[in-house]
């Protein structure tokens, strides 16, 4: 009960933040009711998916200060569990998704134990390596379609299938991922003030001091790594049903891992709103730049250049991301 109360308690944020968050929440709820293009809807779904990925990364990367560049492997585990169970045994999403979470968390405990013996850059490199090794294994594993991947054929199901998450219209997917998005915000809000949340923040600031307070640093990191894993695995399962075609490169590739970390870092790692802001900036930017500039003759690839420049500018101006800039401006005004 106390945990639930803590999840809904936003009293430590300024009123302005809560008002803006409320307006955005209402906008997200009513967005599909207004006229919109399929492209806009797809972009919004991507934004919500990456927000949830970022929230997960933010628990271990932001609050814990452990730069994890291998989160895509858990997207893959979630996506493949859902796809395999649905295609082979017709098991619905609402059963396969929790199973995918359990498998991903079990894997995170297995590799988390040795991984967290490493620190700093060594840890980041090791997370990349584990993700790539898993991707290579899936690329040769025939049971999961090897490099060809798996395809969920929608014609076998009756639309709309809420159990299996098979819909013709994107609006259904939108509301499902919006539900996960709101649950994610509430969870992280409770987490940041939980016992584990405070442990993580103290570990990020000073590991030696944290252990001098009696905190089991290694175990706290492993537990949080598993929580972060659960977030991305849920969205991985959703990804399988939404995209309906999964391949090792798309679901476990390094690009995806880096993009997940970037969302949170750009928006502001270690803040509740950071990953959402990061996704709100990067996803539309990526989609629209690609659509407008990437397709134009002679400008192919320019979208990536602009994208990279924006990231470099924000990183140079404020390493704590966009939310760091907001807080800096706010402090100056108050002073």
């Amino acid at each position, binding site marked *: 009960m106390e945990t639930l109360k803590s999840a809904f308690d936003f009293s430590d944020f300024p009123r302005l933040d809560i008002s803006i968050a409320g307006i955005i929440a209402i906008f997200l709820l009513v967005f599909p009711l207004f006229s919109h293009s399929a492209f806009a809807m797809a972009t919004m779904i991507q934004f919500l998916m990456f927000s949830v990925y970022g929230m997960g990364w933010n628990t271990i990367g932001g609050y814990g200060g452990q730069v994890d560049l291998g989160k895509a492997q858990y997207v893959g585990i979630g996506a493949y569990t859902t796809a395999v169970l649905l295609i082979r045994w017709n098991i619905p999403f609402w059963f396969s998704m929790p199973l995918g979470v359990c498998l991903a968390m079990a894997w995170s405990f297995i590799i988390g134990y040795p991984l967290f013996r490493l620190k700093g850059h060594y840890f980041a490199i090791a997370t990349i390596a584990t993700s790539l090794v898993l991707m290579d294994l899936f690329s040769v594993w025939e049971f999961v379609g090897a490099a060809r991947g798996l395809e969920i054929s929608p014609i076998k199901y009756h639309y709309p299938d809420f159990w299996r998450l098979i819909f013709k219209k994107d609006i259904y997917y939108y509301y499902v991922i919006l539900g996960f998005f709101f649950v994610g915000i509430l969870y992280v809000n409770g987490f940041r003030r939980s016992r584990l949340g*405070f442990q993580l*923040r103290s570990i990020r*600031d000073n590991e030696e001091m944290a*252990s*001098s*307070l009696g905190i089991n640093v290694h175990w706290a990191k492993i537990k949080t790594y598993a929580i972060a894993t659960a977030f991305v695995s849920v969205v991985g399962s959703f990804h399988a049903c939404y995209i309906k075609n999964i391949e090792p490169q798309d679901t476990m590739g390094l690009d995806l891992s880096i993009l997940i970390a970037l969302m949170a870092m750009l928006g502001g790692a270690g803040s509740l709103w950071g990953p959402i802001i990061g996704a709100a900036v990067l996803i539309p930017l990526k989609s629209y730049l690609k659509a407008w500039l990437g397709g134009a003759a002679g400008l192919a690839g320019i979208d990536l250049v602009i994208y990279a420049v924006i990231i470099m500018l924000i990183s140079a101006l404020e390493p704590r991301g966009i939310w760091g800039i907001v807080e800096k401006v706010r402090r100056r005004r108050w002073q």
Partner: protein
Amino acid sequence: MNTPQLAAGIGILAFRQLSGIAAFHKIVIRFYLGVVDITMTEPILDIRDIRVRYAGLPVIHGLSLTVGQGETVCVVGSNGAGKSTLLRAIMATQRTFEGEILFKGKAIHGLKTEDIVRLGIIYVPEEKMLFGPLSVEENLMLGAYVVQDKQRIQQNLDFVYSLFPRLEERRRQAASTLSGGEQQMVAIGRGLMSNPEMLMLDEPSLGLAPILVDEVLDTVGRLKKEGMTILLVEQNVREALVLADRGYVIQTGKIVAQGSGKELLDSDLFRSAFLGI
């Protein structure tokens, strides 16, 4: 050898034993052979001939030290003598290569830091190491990590606020915005939040203005009166030795003198090494 002192000490001990008065943790009977001291009670912390290396170089060579229950023991020495390394070795953040460290009779030199904390030793480092973005109260609550009972945590918090009323006024303020003296209060208060059996303070007055140094050492004195066992490493040698029940002088990783605070202050070795007299 001072035979009358020894005889008196043994006499008191025999009397206490015979009369069944057991609560005399702090009764230490000393006899002096130059600077040799014998603690007659069972020590809560017993360090036996430890050797510690820092960055591969030997820093502590065969150091032995004891702290009795409820005692305030001060370790003094010049910079680089190995005082902080000694505290780190007790907390297992610095590896001990040889020797034994016993706490309440149990060997702790192979344990992890968090397990040592659970046994009741709290270390307040010289750098304070507060969690800057967190508020004063959040920093204090982190100190109560090993305490499960919420009522106990509240009692501890009330005790810390009674010890440092200024912290209660600033409980919602970020720790990084406090003055040096206030940050030291938070660091000590955080240590007290876990009901420690022994508090180890590493240079608590380091970098503080003289008026704040007095304030911090007054606090140590109040904790001593409360019966807290304290192992204090301090650069303000004279004030610290006045405050302490006993003291050790450490030089290049070895104990070179020990005794009561007053005896050390009066000893020739100490006067020449620290006071230049």
